[in-house]
């Protein structure tokens, strides 16, 4: 089983955004891997494992797109356990979802993975598009917003559960396929490769963190740099950011001293109950 997993760097979402002159100033931002992509890495790793800390079988290739400095975050993903890394050097700030998906499609053509795992959305752009566009470009099946995934023992299909508005949808896809993961994917028994792990296999309910051993091992792992030209892609974004503005602020209102006062205010002042 060969799995390609994507990891995008995002500015630390806890830092206050600096917006001015129609732009977002990210010059002082600290960068980290998008949480949903960390979950994607965790998913990919579990699919190559017999259980927590068990033997591994298969390969996890992590790909990122961005300036050369993203190598630092990519090493972090290798320290989690991914086997090798691909860094597509490009200005990530100038790209739209379509460009990202086109680059990834070329990486898929080269690497020929059985499965591509992505986070369902990046917490900066919030577009929630890349996995679906990639699947469309490749003509592959897709399963988005996964709460769980079980790979069949024959490696030919995956049964997933997806978070949908009505509840939970169970969807089976043929491999190769593109999947995107949601929060619940890190539950203890949410991910399993039936060829490797039995029904009792379980993992910690979190994405794994890099151990010291993992960090040392990551230094020796291969990271290959590629340019869009190497992949035969000319970047031509279809969606352009024309400007940014801070949203209108919301001011803090009044404190109330008691439940009685709260209900009176909601009834008589706000008139919402």
């Amino acid at each position: 089983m060969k799995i390609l997993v994507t990891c995008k760097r995002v500015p630390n979402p806890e830092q206050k955004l600096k917006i001015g002159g129609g732009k977002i100033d990210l010059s002082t931002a600290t960068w980290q891997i998008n949480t949903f992509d960390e979950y994607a890495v965790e998913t990919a790793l579990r699919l190559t494992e017999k259980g927590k800390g068990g033997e591994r079988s298969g390969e996890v290739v992590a790909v990122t797109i961005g300036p050369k400095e993203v190598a630092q975050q990519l090493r972090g993903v290798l320290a989690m356990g991914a086997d090798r890394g691909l860094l597509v050097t490009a200005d990530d700030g100038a790209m739209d979802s379509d460009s990202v998906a086109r680059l990834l499609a070329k990486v898929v053509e080269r690497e020929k993975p059985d499965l591509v795992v992505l986070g369902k959305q990046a917490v900066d752009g919030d577009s929630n598009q890349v996995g679906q566009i990639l699947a469309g470009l490749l003509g592959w099946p897709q399963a988005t917003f996964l709460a769980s995934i079980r790979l069949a023992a024959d490696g030919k299909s995956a049964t997933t559960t997806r978070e949908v508005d009505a509840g939970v949808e169970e969807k089976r896809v043929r491999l190769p396929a593109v999947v995107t993961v949601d929060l619940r994917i890190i539950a203890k028994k949410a991910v399993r490769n039936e060829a490797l792990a039995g029904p009792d296999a379980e993992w910690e309910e979190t994405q794994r963190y890099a151990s010291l051993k993992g960090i040392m091992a990551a230094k020796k792992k291969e990271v290959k740099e590629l340019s869009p030209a190497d992949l035969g892609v000319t970047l031509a974004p279809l969606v352009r950011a024309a400007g940014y503005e801070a949203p209108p602020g919301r001011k803090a209102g009044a404190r109330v001293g008691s439940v009685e006062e709260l209900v009176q205010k909601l009834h008589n002042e706000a008139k919402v109950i």
Partner: protein
Amino acid sequence: MGAVLVFCEASGDTLRSASLPALTAARELATHHGGPVVAVVIGQGVSAVANEAARYAARVLAFDDASLAAPLAETYAPVLAAAVKAAGATALVATATSTGKDVLPRTAALLGAGMASDVIRVDGPNKFRRPTYAGNALNDVEIASPIVVLSVRQTAFPAAAPAAAPGTVEAGAAGAIDALGSEVVAVHATKSARPELSEAKIVVSGGRGMKAGENFKVLEELTDLLGGALGASRAAADAGMVPNDLQVGQTGKIVAPQLYIAVAISGAIQHLAGMKGSKVIVAINKDGEAPIFQIADYGLVATWETAIPALIAEVKKLKAAGG
């Protein structure tokens, strides 16, 4: 320029109310594109839904086929792409529901079209405003492709009113349908008598401070008393206290009710992204320094254990008094 196509979702035999805001956005967009609003209905046995959609659009294309019974991106995306071409459309719109989010970007890929997600304002034929960074930045985007695709935020556009005269319904030609081996095995629907979270007038949400799933019972009682919908923060959903489909926030549901009551929710950025469009926000938290108080219209520093039973009693009193 051309027609504006709207993907209208079916919910059983009825048009999903979540699609009505997309029809409103499509009407706005049609003033820029110059063409008519064309609704697309896809599924099996969808004639009733198509007729309902015709109340809102000049023309309805209905794709009715047994192989389209379940909303699979693999089959719906090529049908939508074919419909765009058949109608000579220059725009495709849908509400950012779970199906819309799944199907639309794939359709955009098939059309070679640029897509804007979660649009909150239409500023021109190819100019849209959308929130990014968990709603902390509003991004104006321009789409350069001849066809534009957009998903719209349900709470940002009002539900469309029926048009003066109903439109026409035509059968669309779907061509060969290939699910690529994908199938929906089952749907485990959340059974709830409460209104849908994204459409409710009152939402009561609980956070990590509720400590355990069983403690949500008291919030459910308050929710039902107010005729509202129950929500939760990501922390509470993450901890397994409630199903994830109750999650309100950047990566969950976006709500904008008349009244939002946040109980034992600290107010993480990603939660605020999902509810700060609410008209009136009430925060109940034992920590007076919690960030949720910075955006709340009414704040009460109290534990949920004491405040919620008291709140239930007060609301009952109010109702008994005919309020």
